[in-house]
């Protein structure tokens, strides 16, 4: 695999061909926020928080889905990018009903932590408060559409790691929703294995285990890598 050199925030760095910009940026110690990216899953380029500026194009590039190229000149924290990231998170907060104070993952939520990190102390946009249901039909898990940011991490974990593909998207734009099987109550799903991967990878309180509904439990999205590595290296033998 070849080596490419590029400039990152005025520093000359090298990377392996085929790596994504996000990988390289993080390897070089730059803190680039993401919500839809998760190590072990395919990239979606959905949340746009990892957008960077590249010299020679006026378009912003989502670092997670942009492969590194020789001679790139990348900036990650210009005034414009920081402003856009704040706007993106505020729009996420306004789009559905994120009431942190009564959430099972209050204090352990990626969206909440990111808002604080980006210095968001209020939301400038009018909250939409859509009338969305909570699916509590499953014996062990609860899906609250009001807290979903449509990052698709649950969909990808269910498909790519568990192999069940129970979860998917329905609708477009602001009308998008996570659905179970053919848009039916989760409790009636015949494809769901009840593995709980979706619970662990969900960055917010949209999917939680019933027993953790009172809060205080940390999610463990990092376990995906352990599973995938174990499969790849055939660590477990029986």
């Amino acid at each position, binding site marked *: 695999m070849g080596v490419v050199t590029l400039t990152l925030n005025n520093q000359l760095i090298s990377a392996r061909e085929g790596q994504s910009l996000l990988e390289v940026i993080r390897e070089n110690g730059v803190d680039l926020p993401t919500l839809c990216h998760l190590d072990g899953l395919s990239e979606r380029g959905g949340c746009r928080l990892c957008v960077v500026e590249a010299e020679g194009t006026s378009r912003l590039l989502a670092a997670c889905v942009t492969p590194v190229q020789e001679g790139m000149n990348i900036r990650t924290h210009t005034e414009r990018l920081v402003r856009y990231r704040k706007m993106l998170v505020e729009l996420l907060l306004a789009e559905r*009903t994120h*009431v942190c*104070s009564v959430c099972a993952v209050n204090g352990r939520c990626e969206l909440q932590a990111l808002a*604080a*990190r980006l210095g968001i*102390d209020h939301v400038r946009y009018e*909250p939409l408060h859509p009338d969305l249901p909570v699916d509590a039909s499953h014996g062990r898990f609860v899906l609250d559409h009001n807290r979903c940011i449509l990052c698709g991490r649950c969909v990808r974990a269910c498909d790519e790691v568990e192999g069940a593909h129970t979860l998917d998207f329905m609708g477009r734009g602001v009308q998008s929703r996570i659905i179970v099987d053919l848009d039916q109550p989760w409790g009636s799903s015949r494809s769901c294995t009840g593995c709980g991967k979706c619970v662990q990878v969900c960055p917010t309180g949209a999917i939680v285990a019933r027993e953790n509904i009172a809060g205080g439990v940390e999610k463990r999205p990092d376990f995906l890598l352990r599973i995938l590595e174990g499969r790849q290296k055939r660590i477990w033998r029986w």
Partner: protein
Amino acid sequence: MTEFKNEKVSLATVWLSGCSGCHMSFLDLDEHLLELEKHVRLVFSPLADHKRFPEGVDVVLVEGAVGNVEQLALARTLRERSRVVVALGDCAVTGNVPALRNRLDSEAMVRTVYAGGMDFPGLDPAGLDEKEWVPRLLPSALPLHRVVPVDVFLPGCPPGPQSILAAVTALVRGEPLVLPEAMRRFG
């Protein structure tokens, strides 16, 4: 604590659609309240049962979302009469729990909750003196900054006493307020 100004600063606290948790958190300043009292005059607060929001207030801490017509009027009054308006806590900042009703029809909700779906005296102002009304709910419970301009946002449910102390101390001294990340989290 560093130097305060010589003259006392007038401080008001207001309680709109909230649970009073932010006011409890303010009281949780404990012994710091005694220090604060040397530099602050409390001119309007539910803690002291004032009846009228005064003119010329330096700093006002507003707890709660704007939920009904009475609160809307008070929000406008306090903005007109205060130099610095602080949205204190998540209800004032985002709407928080009171805003969970925003997807519902507010009129029908009041009748369902308080009168089993029937009308009851005071709900419909027709033919009643204003003092006998139940203040009409707004269709949505609103964050304070959707109603009047807000100068400082203090998120948290409630904001911790340390956050309130840091904010009030800075505002009373007329210093710029920069809260650390841990002190400006929703929830």
